[in-house]
């Protein structure tokens, strides 16, 4: 049976390799993919949108619909993960672990006994991970703010350098996931709660779609950012550039929130009590 599967895979690869003989060779400027619509994008982008990064302009302006529904796909992935995994019933787990911070002692509290007195000396810890990891916590405390700053730079500077909403959003989400991994899931809920993540994830899509509706209100087609010149007080070309920035911010917020939601639900299997 295994040999049968290997034969299928080899057959598939053989057919594809045979097909590549008709493909354009590596780096051929006359390749079909580079001849029809792409020269138009390359030559007209800076005249029409004043955005030097052609990828950003094509992503958010010429192909704005594509990117909007891409954002909606990500949004629905986050929501689908909640629907699949989230356990709303809060089951009281009997065993709890606490650490007495000044002495480093670990308290194991059996089922039926209350938590220790509410003070800063006690912190709740996960059942699976007892040791006090100073290096990991300090290291991540150093890394998290700088990666968040870099993420904001990537989103805001997407017009002039490689970057944009998707990349910046993923870096922002990664920094929050790093915080959640290096500390614990409960502490990261105090920073970004599940409710806030869901709201942000919807807010991103609303910013994107709302920018499009704003364009229709000011008498232009949906997602034709030129119409925004009336409220932004700039000429039509610069208004397109600003419109691209607005939708990129929406994409960034949505992607960040979905990454965080995916981590919260996958790490704790939807129970949201303790994670990795």
């Amino acid at each position, binding site marked *: 049976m*295994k040999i049968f*599967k290997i034969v*299928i*895979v*080899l057959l*598939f*690869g053989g057919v*594809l*390799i045979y097909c*590549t*003989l008709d*493909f*354009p*060779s*590596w*780096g*051929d*400027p006359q*390749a079909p*993919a*580079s001849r029809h*619509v*792409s020269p138009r*994008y*390359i*030559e007209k*982008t*800076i005249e029409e949108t004043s955005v*030097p*990064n*052609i*990828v950003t302009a*094509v*992503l958010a302006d010429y*192909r704005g619909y*594509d*990117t909007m529904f*891409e954002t909606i*796909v*990500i949004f629905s*992935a*986050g929501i*689908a*993960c909640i629907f*699949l*995994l989230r356990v709303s019933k809060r089951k009281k787990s009997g065993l709890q672990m606490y650490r007495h911070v000044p002495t480093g002692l670990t308290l194991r509290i059996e089922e039926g006994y209350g938590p220790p007195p509410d003070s800063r000396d006690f912190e709740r810890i996960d059942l699976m991970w007892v040791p006090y990891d100073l290096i990991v916590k300090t290291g991540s405390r150093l890394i998290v703010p700088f990666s968040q700053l870099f993420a904001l730079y990537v989103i805001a500077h997407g017009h*002039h*350098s*490689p970057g*944009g909403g*998707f990349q910046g959003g*993923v870096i922002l989400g990664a920094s929050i996931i790093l915080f959640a991994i290096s500390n614990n899931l409960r502490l990261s809920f105090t920073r970004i709660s599940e409710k806030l993540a869901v709201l942000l994830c919807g807010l991103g899509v609303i910013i994107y779609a709302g920018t499009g509706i704003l364009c229709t209100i000011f008498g232009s087609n949906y997602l034709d950012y030129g119409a925004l010149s009336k409220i932004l007080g700039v000429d039509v070309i610069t208004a397109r550039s600003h419109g691209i920035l607005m939708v990129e911010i929406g994409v960034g917020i949505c*992607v960040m929130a*979905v*990454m965080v939601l*995916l981590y919260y*639900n*996958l790490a704790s*299997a*939807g129970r949201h009590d303790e994670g990795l």
Partner: protein
Amino acid sequence: MNEFFSIVISKLNYWVYITLMMIGLYAMIAKNNLVKKIIGMNILQTAVILFFISIGAKRDATIPIITHGHAGEHHAVHAVDFINPLPHVLMLTAIVVAVATLGVALALVIKLYQKYQTLEEDEILEQIRVRDE
């Protein structure tokens, strides 16, 4: 012989991606563990992404970002000097969608594990067969 080498050099990038794609496909159809199948799916997606990106390459061209002065003046832009931005745009969104599908797939796998206490495909099928009888 020279002709053969020129073919190899001009098509080598596609062959690398096809090899990656075969690895991913093999993992998807032959592996028994569901997480390994998902990893295979991701390898296949990566192969497709690399394939699209390599289509956009042009000889003697640079990345599709136009350098310009602060006053707004810029030189005439020729399409030959910049690589094709279109595959980059398409794959940029495809990468993020790959992450989203990975998340949903892992959620489904967690659900399956909670129900059957295993991730091996044949054991899950066996349990379903026993339950039906």
